């Protein structure tokens, strides 16, 4: 892991919100070309408070409010990036990115290609995603597969404060456009899917110990979140914690791979683990059909077929809009994940 800090690293307990804010604080301080904007992100500091205090510290030139126009936010960011800035823009909820689709898919993602490197778009588009907060169908979606389907984008989703800060700094420094998805159920603490149990905070959690200064987590490396021998879980974001709960509750020794960056994928780590365990369960919160899990299952099949001892299992959200009152019937909690583990072991 690349680190640009002293050996005696000073760390502070941070929530994911604080860690993300710290990443932007660090980059605003290090690079005059970093600018941050989006709906409510300036004076108020964002509806999730991620940019709180940044305008006061760096001024309105560097952190400001934007009109309610995702297409305009991303479109202007493409222009700024073409000028030479490194814009970090916030889409208030991932559910709202659709009006910006043309600017993301046809413009940001292809600027380098279509101009043969004459113009580039080094921008980072942050967006809170995922459910578990009673957000209903317009505040709960996990649209990562829309982005992994687009050539030229990098799609990132952290599962903890340490990674969130390091990945966001790496994203801002990266010369390709990055979609940075933030599982909002993890903003304040790890979440194992048991919504009826007391909320856990990051304060006492080792992954909530975050270096104060600059460091990066590489964009092309998955993390082995939990080593295990029985089966491999390919997952990311909130489902990392749900998968861990399922492993603990079933007693199945799952090796959990936290992809961290979905695309371009660290296929090597994935293949190595599946070849070791011979079984694979893909877990994500997004809807099932044409979800990123389908790509993962296909890749595992292509690269590990003769090592597989069981069909690849997929645990996902149902193919319905994200419901409000029925949220916990929709959310793929530890029981559904654990059942998939058992099927994979029994096959």
């Amino acid at each position, binding site marked *: 892991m690349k680190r640009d800090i002293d050996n005696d690293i000073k760390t502070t307990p941070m929530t994911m919100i604080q860690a993300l804010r710290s990443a932007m604080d660090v980059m605003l301080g290090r690079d*005059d070309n970093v*600018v941050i904007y989006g709906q409510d992100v300036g004076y108020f500091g964002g509806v999730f408070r991620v940019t709180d205090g940044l305008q006061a510290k760096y001024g309105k*030139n*560097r952190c400001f409010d*934007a*009109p309610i*126009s995702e*297409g*305009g936010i991303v*479109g*202007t*960011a*493409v*222009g*700024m990036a*073409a*000028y*030479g*800035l490194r*814009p970090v823009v916030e889409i208030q909820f991932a559910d709202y990115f659709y*009006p910006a689709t*043309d*600017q993301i898919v*046809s*413009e940001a993602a292809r*600027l*380098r*290609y*279509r*101009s*043969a*490197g*004459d*113009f*580039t778009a080094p921008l980072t588009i942050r967006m809170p995603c995922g459910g578990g907060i009673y957000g209903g169908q317009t505040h709960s979606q996990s649209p990562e597969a829309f982005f992994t389907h687009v*050539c*030229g984008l*990098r799609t990132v989703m952290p599962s903890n404060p340490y990674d969130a800060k390091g990945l966001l700094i790496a994203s801002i420094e*990266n*010369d*390709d456009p990055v979609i940075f998805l933030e599982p909002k159920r993890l903003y304040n603490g790890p979440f194992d899917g048991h919504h009826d149990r007391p909320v856990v905070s990051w304060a006492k959690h080792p992954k909530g110990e975050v270096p104060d200064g600059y460091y990066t987590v590489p964009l*092309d490396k998955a993390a082995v979140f939990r080593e295990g021998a029985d089966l491999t879980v390919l997952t990311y974001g909130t489902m990392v914690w749900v998968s861990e709960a399922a492993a603990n509750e079933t007693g199945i020794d799952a090796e959990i791979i936290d992809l961290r960056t979905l695309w*371009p*994928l660290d*296929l*090597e780590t994935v293949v190595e683990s599946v070849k070791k365990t011979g079984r694979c369960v893909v877990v994500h919160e997004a809807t099932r059909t044409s979800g990123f899990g389908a790509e993962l299952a296909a890749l595992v099949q292509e690269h590990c077929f003769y090592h597989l001892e069981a069909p690849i299992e997929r645990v996902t959200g149902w193919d319905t809009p994200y419901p409000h009152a029925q949220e916990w019937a929709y959310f793929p909690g530890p029981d559904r994940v654990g059942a998939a583990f058992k099927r994979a072991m029994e096959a």
Partner: protein
Amino acid sequence: MSQSTPLSLHVPEPTGRPGCKTDFSYLDIHQAGDTPRPPVDVRYQDTAALATGMIRVLDDDGNAVGPWDPGLDRDTLRFGLRTMMKTRIFDARMVIAQRQKKLSFYMTCLGEEAIGTAHALALKDGDMCFPTYRQQSLLMAREYPLVDMVCQLLSNEADPLKGRQLPVMYSVKNKGFFTISGNLATQIPQAVGWAMASAIKGDTKIASGWIGDGATAESDFHTGLTFAHVYQAPVILNVVNNQWAISTFQAIAGGESVSFAARGVGAGIASLRVDGNDFLAVYAASCWAAERARANLGPTLIEWVTYRAGPHSTSDDPSRYRPADEWTYFPLGDPICRLRRHLIRQGWWSDADHEALQAELEAEVLAAQKEAERHGTLIDGRVPSAASMFEDVYKDMPEHLRRQRQQLGV
């Protein structure tokens, strides 16, 4: 009001269709010289009359009249004429090359040459244009080498864009020419963003975004107006109203009862409607807008009224949807003829000069084409390598693209 009558849908129609002559009175053309020139710090609401009127300098006899006359010197005017003629000759030559199948596709800007040419002269080096596919005159005015243009059109081994883009979708950063997208209107918020960046950095450069009348219906256009107004971005937003978006008359884009420039006033932006076939008016209005932007007075919207004299592209046959001779009757005429008449009237040009320049430019274009064809054409298959298709998707090639390149066997 108790009586109920059946409702009916209004679908705008042009007055002219094949076999039916166009009534151009809808253009609401004003006399040259009759429009006042306000100071550059004018309030946006005080440009309302300018946004529905029409700024014109050249009258029908080739005289420069009124407060917008920029008083250009002989050499600048001659350079303008030369650039417009070069653009037209180049376009004509490339249409022939497309018919010969040396390139797949082409788009001329016939009849619109004054707009990009004079606008480019009003900008400075370092200013960035975000053009559509019909602003090749910007590149001509900035003297981008013709050979490089033709190599892009031929998609050959020397194509600066490595064969990835349709012909005419140039990208020339060092000439202030942003990479052209085929998706319409996307460049408008981008131009605004580039201008915002210049302001954020305390730079002195300005941006100039371009769009056609048809694409103003896209949300990106209106979004761009909002952001330009909100942040008072140093940007010029140009709407080239050439009356036609492929077969769609400008009234279908919303130009029937209100000018495109008037939309700027509604968004809080100083706005002008200008005779786009009048080289002097284009130059003067562009300078006015550029001065506003550079003085931190914010954006300006300019509607350039012109006529797309050619087909939309080499894939289009306009005689199917409009009178084939419509341009002949277009009241704002031909920009090259009008500037030529003015130069002759000034005593700075002659028919003999014109013929000599025509021959010189034809030879220059032909020589550039021949030079470019040495690097291949679509016919001889000397196009960029298939392996290069995998480059520039990301800054560094990821593993999955290396694998796919190997699968292709290149």
